[in-house]
């Protein structure tokens, strides 16, 4: 669990990660690690395994084979989950409650400190301060996504797991996404996205998945953007052919 301070600490450690549903393999033999401060973008077509990988990291799924550790602990342990912030296809909100009440509920469950101030700041940051007292039911899809981002970052998680965080956001909000998600600029994150341009601006490392396998990792296979784009064309746009 403890780590040397000299090199950046390893946060995510996945080895031979495989998830199967019966005979269908959603993810096959994925090994990779994420260190403190890294911002990894997962790119891939629908069904490439991005969501499955994020759900495994979030402890929502158990691996069929292989292992995944966050800070040396399986991610489904409560003390791991406390340090992780997640956005998913579902917004997680209770639509009867107001934006403010939803944040308060999650903040209390995560044991967030200075909750009232933290909520106000988070709402301010994602541009929802005016809608704080409105039931989530009445918010537009884009506003709900802003709220989901506020919720995921409220407790200052040490690791963000973001599944298509741009969903439903207008062009202006997509431009602000980096400030919504990373107010400190140093957060560690794994981000799945369909948008290559967004991926290139949000990330510092790019991983391309296809058919449940890692096909390209900029860390090992060359760092420059041209290569990312070439591999993106090959594996995502043309399906690996």
């Amino acid at each position: 669990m403890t780590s040397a301070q000299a090199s950046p600490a390893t946060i995510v450690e996945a080895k031979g990660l495989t998830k199967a549903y019966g005979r269908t393999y959603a993810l096959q033999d994925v090994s990779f690690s994420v260190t403190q401060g890294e911002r990894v973008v997962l790119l891939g077509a629908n069904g490439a395994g991005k969501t499955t990988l994020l759900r495994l990291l979030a402890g929502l799924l158990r691996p069929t084979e292989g292992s995944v550790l966050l800070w040396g602990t399986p991610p489904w342990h409560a003390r791991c989950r406390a340090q992780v912030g997640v956005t998913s296809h579902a917004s997680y909100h209770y639509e009867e409650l107001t934006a403010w009440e939803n944040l308060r509920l999650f903040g209390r469950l995560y044991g967030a400190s200075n909750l009232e101030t933290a909520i106000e700041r988070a709402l301010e940051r994602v541009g929802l301060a005016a809608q704080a007292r409105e039931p989530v039911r009445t918010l537009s899809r884009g506003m709900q996504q802003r709220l989901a981002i506020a919720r995921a970052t409220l407790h200052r998680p040490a690791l963000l797991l973001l599944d298509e965080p741009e969903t439903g956001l207008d062009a202006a909000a997509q431009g602000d996404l980096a400030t919504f998600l990373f107010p400190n600029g140093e957060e560690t994150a794994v981000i799945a996205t369909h948008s290559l341009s967004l991926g290139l601006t949000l990330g510092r490392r790019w991983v391309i998945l296809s058919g449940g396998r890692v096909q390209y990792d900029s860390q090992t296979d060359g760092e420059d953007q041209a290569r990312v784009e070439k591999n993106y064309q090959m594996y995502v746009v043309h399906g690996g052919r």
Partner: protein
Amino acid sequence: MERGLSQPKTGVLSTLGWLDLLWLLSLVGIPTMLYLALVWAPEDAVMAELVYRATGVRDGVAQRIFYTHVPMAMAAYISFFLVFLGSLLYLWRRQIVWDIVARSSAEVGVVFTTLALITGSLWGMPTWGAPWAWDARLTFTLVLWLIYIAYLMLRSAGGGNPARTARYAAVLGIVGFFDIPLIHWAVVIIPEGMHPFIVSESRASLPPEMLFTLIVAILTFAVLALLVIGQRIRLELAREELENLQVAMDRERSAP
């Protein structure tokens, strides 16, 4: 000896050579039990009297169904205990073998419960003059039957996620087993405690020949249940093995 069925990963239950022994015991046990039950055992006066009082018919033969009814119910209880053990071990070890043990035992248990309910009704015809009179023990058996029918339905409603289906089924296998003593308490023990007459009559001591026959029958049916469960497990393991080989081939082909 296992002929093509490679050892399951766990090595558990790989010694299905046990099955040969169970086959042998069944081959000896079934004719012996049938001879004892149908020819050798005397017809019981107390039971004949009960039948006579209820129906006015002097028919002692019907009571011989008791040598299959009781053992079938016992075989079902053994199967349900195996469902519990398999479920517990599956949740603990997460090995598919234990799920196969649980589901095979549940199928066999439901078959034996069904047979026990049918023989019970057949016995009920001359005894109570009706196929179903909500006799406490038969009612208890009926509730167990419903629980394990629900178990099998839950398995078939699982959808495309076998691991989840196995987990859900295991939860029901455990909860159902803990429920059994409570059902027995509520459906048999308390009602009988309120009518002590029935207890003294149904627990009338059996003549030694009848008791001997009953014990042989119970053992034979227990062996038979274990044999069928064992065969079922062997078949399911073989199917699992085949599927793993197919998946491995698919993955090999799709690998870069």
